[in-house]
């Protein structure tokens, strides 16, 4: 079943990430001082403190660092259980919180290779917004 998809509200610090998402691209911030790939997106490098941040197109490939199959949850998500909440470790380094979609939740393992997919999202008023970064399994 399709997971809830609430669009985020971009701001001036996060706009390149969400503009990338609109194009189906994973665009990440990288520190121009120390080359650290920053997550979550923001215009400060948590490693060196520089606010000189650039953006680049990442591969969209990664592997599952951890996951859980949620079977009971309050609120709207209870209609889509069981669903998979996960941390994916991107090949560029960051571990990002996400959902694994288009999968059999009972067959997943830590270490499975995954690839970014961008899913349509809407805001509270039902208007379309930046798509959500989720992942599907490529090899298990």
């Amino acid at each position, binding site marked *: 079943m399709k997971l809830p998809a609430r669009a985020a509200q971009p701001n001036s610090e996060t706009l390149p990430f969400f503009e990338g998402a609109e194009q189906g691209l994973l665009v990440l911030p990288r520190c121009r001082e120390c080359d650290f790939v920053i*997550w979550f997106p923001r215009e400060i490098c*948590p490693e060196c403190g520089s606010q000189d941040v650039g953006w680049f197109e990442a591969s969209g490939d990664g592997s599952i660092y*951890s*996951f859980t199959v949620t079977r009971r*949850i309050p609120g709207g998500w209870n209609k889509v259980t069981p669903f998979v909440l996960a941390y994916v470790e991107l090949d560029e380094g960051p571990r990002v919180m996400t959902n694994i979609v288009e999968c059999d939740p009972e067959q997943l393992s830590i270490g499975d290779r995954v690839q970014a997919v961008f899913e349509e999202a809407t805001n509270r008023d039902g208007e379309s917004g930046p798509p959500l970064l989720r992942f599907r399994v490529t090899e298990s």
Partner: protein
Amino acid sequence: MSIRGKAFIAGVHEHPERHLPDRTLPQIHADVALGALSDAGLSTSDVDAYYSAGDAPGFGVLSMVDYLGLDCHYINDTETGGSSYLVHAQHAATAIAAGHIDVALITLAGKPRTGGAGPGGSGRVSAAPEAPFESQWGMSVPGGYALAAQRHMHEFGTTSEQLAEVKVAASTHAQHNPNAFLQDVVTVDEVLDSPMISDPLRRLDCCVITDGGGAMVIVSEAVADRLARHCIPILGTGSFVKSSQSGRIDLTHTGAVRSGPLAFSEAGVTPSDIDYVSVYDSFTITVLITLEDLGFCERGAGGQFIASGALRAPHGELPFNTDGGGLCNNHPANRGGMTKVIEAVRQLRNEAHAEVQVPDCELAVAHGTGGSLATRSASSTMVLGRSL
């Protein structure tokens, strides 16, 4: 300057009720404040410092100082979720050691069963810079801790049976607590047979949701000397914020790896000296990881340590949460830090239930965790002694 031996816990009070439909939130703060002051042999007119966290209504300390009728020249509303009250105690002890204050009051209250805020943090979260990247994925509170549990199992071979023993030990303690929300002893099989919430955490791996609260009163040596009550010296404190680690989060440890050594070092003791521990137990996995982080067992060996029966009072290697903890007794306002301190004080005063009182309990640790193990959290550790 060290705070060691400069400040004393003179009074504690845990609200006896777990369901409070007819008390307002300020009333519950007042109930526990007056209870802790009475335990100490003090009154509201003695208080010169007040501390509360995000569970306080309205304008927080301003509203509550006014409601309670206090005269305070020192106030603080540090908010780190469930560990807030240990952080407050650390700040109070520091202010006492510096000579700024003599009597600090710290309160916690909540009504998650009867109309108050549910689990999951403060209303400020919606404006957090990380929110657009963490709030879209259906992460429940158990779901977040499940991510940590799953990774710990993957790296160290920790099992659901080992996690279940945390709950079993807590339930064997809770049977002796007439105020405990859950008083039935459960078995490992009963934990494993309870409904799966978010793999690998089952319903009985999760803490209870209760109305209620607690308070503590921390005083200077001069005040402690004139009180009849057995005042418990604060020997060491430490707090640490574990961030999301620049987006490279390791889910198998908490900030206790830093807060613990700070507290032990200030107290001049080691983990092997500790007779009793109150360890934060939002979920069974929280206990397991925290015990490793505090150095009570080797990293990755928490499962074996727990399965050995170490946590069972009164004769286990490291009796824990003898009130039944958050898993069985009480988790008022979805924040467990206050009750951790209260049960440690009972143990050191020799006032725990006789069935779970640790013999010759000289040194205790109380430890709080706030936020989420899945993202960012604040750990706070306090070493307490029966005497200086």
